[in-house]
């Protein structure tokens, strides 16, 4: 086993550390360039503004780790938001009930897609693409336009916040994100489910031959992702104060970008949930910096994200081609997309 670099850390941790470094460098640069950027309030805002992207990305991490992909998340977020808004607004359903209902739809939807993908051996790309179209259309069936949410429960939740320091509270949206993140960490690293996901993503055939419940695990991964998407949709309703069937276009790609920047390989089997958190924060930092700057236009965000993605992919390729991870290269050759 050749250790090409004499680093004090394992090669597999390098992408994660690299991501962390990028985040720190970005934040530092922005703090130097813009007055007031280096503040607790900005950090907390980073978490709460990007909570729904972050939650979506966490769910996506599990799917990608298992070797699949899910294009439907943006549409599911949009559907959930308008679903909750319609229930609370037009049907006088209590928000808690509406939210619980929505949180059940997500896993069911994900489970359905997972079943079809696993049992009929359909490509995840296409099945989740169909799921995306379905969810997007159904969102518009529920309501053609965005609908505001007015309810004392929402007011109460929005005003809730755990004070941290200097009068800066952590709002409920950021709390939800952090809680989910911790849960995901535990799932990935301390449960059999998490270990199975890594095994399946690494090599599905050997996982199967080892006796791991491949089908059940994959379907669970898609169900968990569905749950995360609906949770993100619920968080979005708090963030926007309304539901909108036209939101979230391209959210799935932002989520995939967060996951990839976070160091997870798209072939699966390698990556960390913590990386995804950092990837989301990088996204948010660039966006916040653009807002602070005021001069640059939103398409620079696209270019910056694209350039970052490129840099990370090349870094990953460099590492995996030099390290003993030849199985990754083999997996890429035999699983072309």
């Amino acid at each position, binding site marked *: 086993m050749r250790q090409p670099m004499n680093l004090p850390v394992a090669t597999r941790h390098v992408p994660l550390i690299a991501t962390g470094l990028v985040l720190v460098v970005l934040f530092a640069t922005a703090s130097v360039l813009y007055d007031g950027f280096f503040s607790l309030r900005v950090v907390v805002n980073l978490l709460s503004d990007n909570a729904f992207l972050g939650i979506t990305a966490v769910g996506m991490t599990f799917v990608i780790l298992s070797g699949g992909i899910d294009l439907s998340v943006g549409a599911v977020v949009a559907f959930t938001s308008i679903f909750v808004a319609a229930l609370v607004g037009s049907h006088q359903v209590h928000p808690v009930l509406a939210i619980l209902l929505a949180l059940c739809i997500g896993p069911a939807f994900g489970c359905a897609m997972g079943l079809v993908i696993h049992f009929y051996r359909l490509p995840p790309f296409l099945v989740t693409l169909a799921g995306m179209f379905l969810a997007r259309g159904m969102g518009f069936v529920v309501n053609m336009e965005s609908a505001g949410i007015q309810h004392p429960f929402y007011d109460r939740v929005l005003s809730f916040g755990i004070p941290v320091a200097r009068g800066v509270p952590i709002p409920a949206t950021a709390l939800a994100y952090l809680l989910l993140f911790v849960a995901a960490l535990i799932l990935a690293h301390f449960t059999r489910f998490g270990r199975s996901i890594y095994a399946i993503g690494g090599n599905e055939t050997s996982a199967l031959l080892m006796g791991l419940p491949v089908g059940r695990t994959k379907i669970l991964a898609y169900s968990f992702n569905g749950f995360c998407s609906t949770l993100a949709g619920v968080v979005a309703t708090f963030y926007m104060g309304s539901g909108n069937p036209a939101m979230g276009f391209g959210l799935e790609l932002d989520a995939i970008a967060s996951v990839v920047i976070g160091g997870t390989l798209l072939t699966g089997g390698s990556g960390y949930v913590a990386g995804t958190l950092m990837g989301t924060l990088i996204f948010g930092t660039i966006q916040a910096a653009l807002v602070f700057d005021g001069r640059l236009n939103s398409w620079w965000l*696209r270019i910056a994200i694209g350039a970052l993605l490129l840099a990370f*992919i090349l870094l990953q390729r460099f590492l995996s081609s030099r390290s003993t991870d030849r199985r990754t290269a083999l997996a890429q050759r035999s699983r072309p*997309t």
Partner: protein
Amino acid sequence: MMRKGLRFHLDGGRTIWPVLGLVALLVLNLIFSERFFHLEILDGRLYGTLVDVLNQGSKVMLLAVGMTLVIATGGVDLSVGSVMAVSGAVGAVLVTRTEIPFPALVACALSAAVLMGLANGVLVALAGVQPIVATLIFMVLGRGVAMLITGGQIITFEDRAFVFLANGHFLGLPLTAAIVALVLAGTALLTRGAAVGLFIEATGNNETASRLCGVNTRMVKVLVYGFSGFCAGAAGLIAASNIKAADSSRVGEMMELDAIFAVVAGGTALTGGRFTLIGSIVGALLIQILTTTMYNLGVPPTIAPVPKAALIIVVCLLQSEQFRRHFVGRREIARPTVPETG
């Protein structure tokens, strides 16, 4: 040459399903909307819903042709929508700010598109990056570049030659249909008449074996992505000509997904290998007729994705061996379902 290709590449009957779907949709239209098959000739040009389908569907058909070859090598190209935006932006900026002749303008726009495609190819073939990620990067970057070129504005133009591209007629049919036919014929000739097609299929089927046989798999991959860029560039020019403007933020949105579906529905497997150009055209027509049917039935465009989703699922299920076995009920000796690794 084409006839042999048709028979040879119906790929174990996979193309039969989209053809059946097409027939089913046409029958549906026959029953529910009489105007669908109405054709009339005015001023030597053919008019009618079917002609509109050809015209509107030309962009997806072009994208699908390029996408077929990419998918045949086992890859995918998500950046085609953004390449469309770039090519339209280049075209619009050149036509409004310079006096260069139209053919030169087309050459410039197509070159920009091909360049982007080749960049994709280089990332995939030489750096070994996964196609989804590489083309995703250019999808994001390309959109930003297109916005940069137009300066964030929607650039409108009135140039007669440019506008004629999407609105003109040739031999009674829309010019766009002629363009598609030309590209299709050229591609078919190149891939079936020369060894390129064989190399593409070999690369997609088993890259290692092909490379060891002496096929220059890297060059093949770079070239197919470049070609996909070319097709997207052409589609982008048509799209810009359609609205007489370059709208960098919206043009080509979601079209890559339509193109991928058209190719897969047509019978080319997502994992690569054997491909069928005719199948992709049929798939693209299927999508376009579905869209037009929904429009005619008065379904709001925002809800139109739902039947599209149903279509995708139905076509995929029909193509899945497991599904067919389930319902045809052929008894087979039980064997462990080991997932294919590509």
